[in-house]
């Protein structure tokens, strides 16, 4: 079955791309193709001009330059938060124990998790776990970080902290590709938004474009739904006016 059809886009350095769309439209698959967790059957993916699909490409080295933050965090359950962050540094980047620890602490500070450095994932709340997950990706100093619905498994009251951290690192100039339905986040930092529907790009443009004048009916309908779900007050008011 073909999941993704004719998708082509470029991500420039320091850019934040937000991908959104209905479930089953292939957003996650797209991300997993980009870091070759699900290698695509056809097509080309380039990272700094080098094709990932080339037979001589070293996938492990490439993946170490593409960070990934998962919907269900996927923290290493047997390691403390700080060891979760330093594992990749030590085993992939060849840092010494002390270097890795220092770097991990520094990164945990960026996501405001230093206080919980010695806790195991099971002792942390979902939002804290996700912030460690972000630190784990961030510590590797990747060229780009992929976020796969980072807040959709969180309780509403925990989303704010994670989004704040994402905003901070976006503003510090990290290149990001984010699959999310947090339109507030998109409005704040997205350089471009891409609407995926049934495996194809239905519409793309700046946040301004999407929030004021989306072209396709499908996108309009989807945004209407989201607006209601995420407390778009204007929309709710209009509905009650109509009645």
């Amino acid at each position, binding site marked *: 079955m073909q999941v993704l059809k004719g998708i082509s886009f470029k991500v420039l350095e320091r850019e934040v791309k937000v991908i959104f769309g209905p479930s089953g439209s292939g957003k996650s698959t797209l991300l997993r193709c980009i870091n070759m967790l699900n290698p695509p059957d056809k097509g080309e993916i380039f990272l700094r001009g080098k094709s990932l699909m080339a037979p001589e490409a070293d996938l492990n080295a490439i993946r170490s330059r593409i*960070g990934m933050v998962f919907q269900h965090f996927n923290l290493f359950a*047997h390691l403390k938060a700080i060891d979760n962050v330093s594992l990749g540094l030590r085993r992939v980047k060849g840092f010494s124990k002390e270097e890795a620890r220092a770097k991990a602490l520094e990164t945990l500070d960026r996501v405001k998790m230093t206080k919980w450095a010695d806790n195991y994932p*099971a002792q942390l709340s979902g939002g804290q776990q996700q912030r460690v997950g972000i630190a784990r990706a961030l510590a590797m100093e990747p060229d780009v970080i992929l976020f796969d619905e980072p807040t959709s498994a969180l309780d509403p009251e925990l989303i704010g902290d994670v989004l704040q951290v994402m905003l901070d690192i976006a503003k510090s100039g990290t290149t990001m590709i984010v699959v999310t339905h947090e339109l507030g986040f998109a409005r704040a930092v997205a350089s471009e938004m891409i609407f995926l529907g049934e495996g194809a790009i239905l519409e793309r443009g700046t946040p301004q474009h999407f929030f004021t004048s989306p072209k396709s009916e499908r996108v309009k309908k989807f945004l209407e739904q989201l607006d209601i779900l995420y407390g778009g007050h204007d929309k709710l008011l209009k509905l009650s006016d109509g009645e």
Partner: protein
Amino acid sequence: MITMLFQVGSEFAAFVIGIVLTITVPIIIFITGAYTMKWYAKKKRWGVSIKTALIVNTILLILSSPINFLFTLIYNDILVTYVISLVINITFGTIIVMKFYKKRFRDSFLFNIVIQLILFPTTLILSFIIGFILSLIFFPDITVNTIIIIWDIFSLIIINGLAITLFLTALGLLGGFLLGLSLALMRVYGGKELTWFASGYEKLFRGIPILILIFIFAFGMPDLFWYIAHPLNRIQASVILALALRSAAYQSQIFRGAILSVNLGQMEAARALGMSRLSALRHVILPQALRLAVPGWSNEYAIVIKDTSFAFEVGIIEMTKWAYRYGTNYPELWILSMAVLAITYFLFTFPVTKLLGERQIKKLKNLGIGGS
């Protein structure tokens, strides 16, 4: 004559002990029974009053005491009497509980089974303790002698046999661990051929009794360990090989289950960091899988340490062989030496399975390893 605890010379003293036992034990059973019944009735939400439990137990005491006494006279054997009184108690108990707790036959029958399951061992232990104290009073020399004999057998088994038993167990388990883990990795990550090989191996070695494996390697292949000088050490090596090969078949299952129950996302997260498959296996999957395998593995330890007792069939002098020697030298002490041997094995399995099994499960739960 000096050996058996209750087989005593003096008819009169034995009579006194019998009388004291027949009086004290029912009283203790009556009290324990009432409180057990109250506890269980409360747990089942049948009622909380101790009064009902006391009434039920009083009737049971009045009904079953003469019958018990009769059977004691006929058979003159404590164990037989207890088994008969167990049946009597369940039969009467069911009817009385039906009447006083106003429950259906099936419920009160099950209720009584549970109560008796608790009471029966308690009764045995209690009468043993009371009998022991009484014989200590009436025949101090015989009783002390028996204790010395028990200690004698125990120290003989421990001093001479324990080291070799633990040696066989440790090496058998270690060999089984290395081979079993490799087989498990083959089954999970290997291609079709490796999977076939590993599962074929498991099926083969799980289907052969350990004694036959030991016979094959110890006597059937005398040149298998030609480089070991001493013939007895050669046989030891054969036994270890048999234990390891068999244990590997079981340990492979344990590790396969453990690896498969590590969350799939863990591997993905490790790969996404840029770790190779092997590195992810080593630093992420195996540390979790081995933790998950500990409870199952402790069970395997219990199996292997008990299976080392088969080594005595090929001439290795370990714990079983020492108890066997003692028992054949003093046939009247056969049951005692076997009991001491059984308790010794139990002492070396139960604490380990308890510690590694239940405590590890709790620890894993706290870490959230395994499952989704």
